[in-house]
């Protein structure tokens, strides 16, 4: 049986751990609210953008001169996977779920004889993927200095992706991120961004066909597609940020509860040991007195 001093130290250390996890949980809760607000605020833009683009894509998409970003390069040999994870750990299974999805995709593509390139956003995902697929990585985006994600960050990533596309480095690009569902549930998601894919527009969208386009449908589309990609990346980053905080909050909530349980158990153990010591002393005194 461990002695009393050890137990006491142990309890103290678990107590301070609980304080830390509790604080982290509260910080995550505050950040989560902010991240959710940011995601909410970005929604009108993304929705409008998508609506206009899918309308345009439907009318231009099948013609000969459709932009390459929409029509694709005509092959699907080289895939670029943009894996977005967090910069910091202690957020439960948040990073692992994304990486698992990405890993499954990589394995599938490699098995089909395709070339895979990886672009990682966030340190944690890179660490997890580096061991197995380190030679596939082409670039890494570091967001550790970024306090709150702005459109500028997304535009930079989009620019990087587009430059690579123009240079013919890949044919198909997809992004991997977690969609925020609730504090306890984040859904790892894969979205193809190049060539742009849209859900078929709601049937017979009369309003969309009546639009005048200035300068021209093609020119508008050409202008919009890169923005659309940036917007998709931005939305993904925001979802990811909210998911990360949500995951951290529930992970820290669990940790706090576990620490509490552990303290209870240790305290009982401590009290029992103390009682045993007292009993021991009494027995010694009594048997000493009897011997006299």
């Amino acid at each position, binding site marked *: 049986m461990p002695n009393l001093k050890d137990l006491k130290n142990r309890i103290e250390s678990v107590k301070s751990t609980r304080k830390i996890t509790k604080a982290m949980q509260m910080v995550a809760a505050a950040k989560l609210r902010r991240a959710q607000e*940011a995601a909410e*605020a*970005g929604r*009108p*833009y*993304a929705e*409008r*953008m998508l609506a*206009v683009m899918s309308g*345009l894509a439907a009318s231009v998409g099948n013609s000969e001169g459709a932009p390459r970003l929409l029509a694709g390069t005509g092959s699907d040999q080289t895939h670029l996977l943009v894996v977005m994870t967090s910069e910091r750990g202690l957020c439960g299974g948040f990073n692992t779920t994304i990486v698992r999805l990405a890993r499954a995709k990589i394995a599938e593509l490699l098995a089909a004889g395709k070339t895979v390139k990886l672009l990682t956003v966030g340190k944690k995902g890179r660490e997890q993927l580096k061991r197995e697929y380190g030679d596939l990585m082409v670039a890494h985006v570091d967001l550790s200095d970024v306090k709150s994600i*702005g*459109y500028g960050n*997304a*535009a930079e990533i989009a620019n990087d992706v587009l430059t690579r596309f123009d240079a013919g480095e890949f044919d198909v690009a997809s992004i991997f991120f977690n969609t925020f569902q609730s504090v306890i549930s984040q859904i790892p998601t894969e979205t193809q961004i190049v060539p742009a894919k849209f859900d078929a527009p709601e049937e017979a969208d009369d*309003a969309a066909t*009546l*639009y*005048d*386009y*200035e*300068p021209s449908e093609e*020119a*508008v589309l050409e*202008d*919009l597609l890169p*923005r659309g990609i*940036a*917007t998709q990346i*931005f939305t993904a980053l925001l979802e990811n940020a909210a998911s990360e905080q949500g995951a951290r909050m529930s992970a820290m909530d669990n940790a706090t509860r576990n620490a509490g349980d552990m303290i209870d158990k240790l305290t009982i153990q401590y009290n029992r040991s103390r009682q045993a010591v007292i009993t021991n002393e009494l027995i010694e005194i009594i048997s000493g007195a009897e011997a006299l």
Partner: protein
Amino acid sequence: MADLMQFDLVSPERKLASVEASSVQIPGADGDLTAMADHAPLITTLRPGILTVEGPEGTMEYVVTGGFADVAGPSVSVLAERAMPKADVTGDVLAELISDAEAKHAAATDTAVDVAAKLVADLNALKDSLGA
């Protein structure tokens, strides 16, 4: 009083304005245009410029760069990459935008050169019109 329409100005990060307006002057890529209620449906890309909104609550001016406007009968939505109330735009902000655009111009190749040059010119014109 002219008929009113719904006007929304959104940037990727937030909604800047959502008000009733009687007319909206939009800096379209091919030139300025003013949209009033029941304008024919139109989608146009934007060039950097000043967006003027006239409504019952007075006139508001915003500086926008890039993006597009979606004009559809009862509503006008402007989706701008960057949008700021005119009063907030200082010479520094513009100078930064211009130097960005010039850097892009220098790095551009093929057809992108003309596009980048136009962006620089538009930004400079914007700067002149603001007197910044």
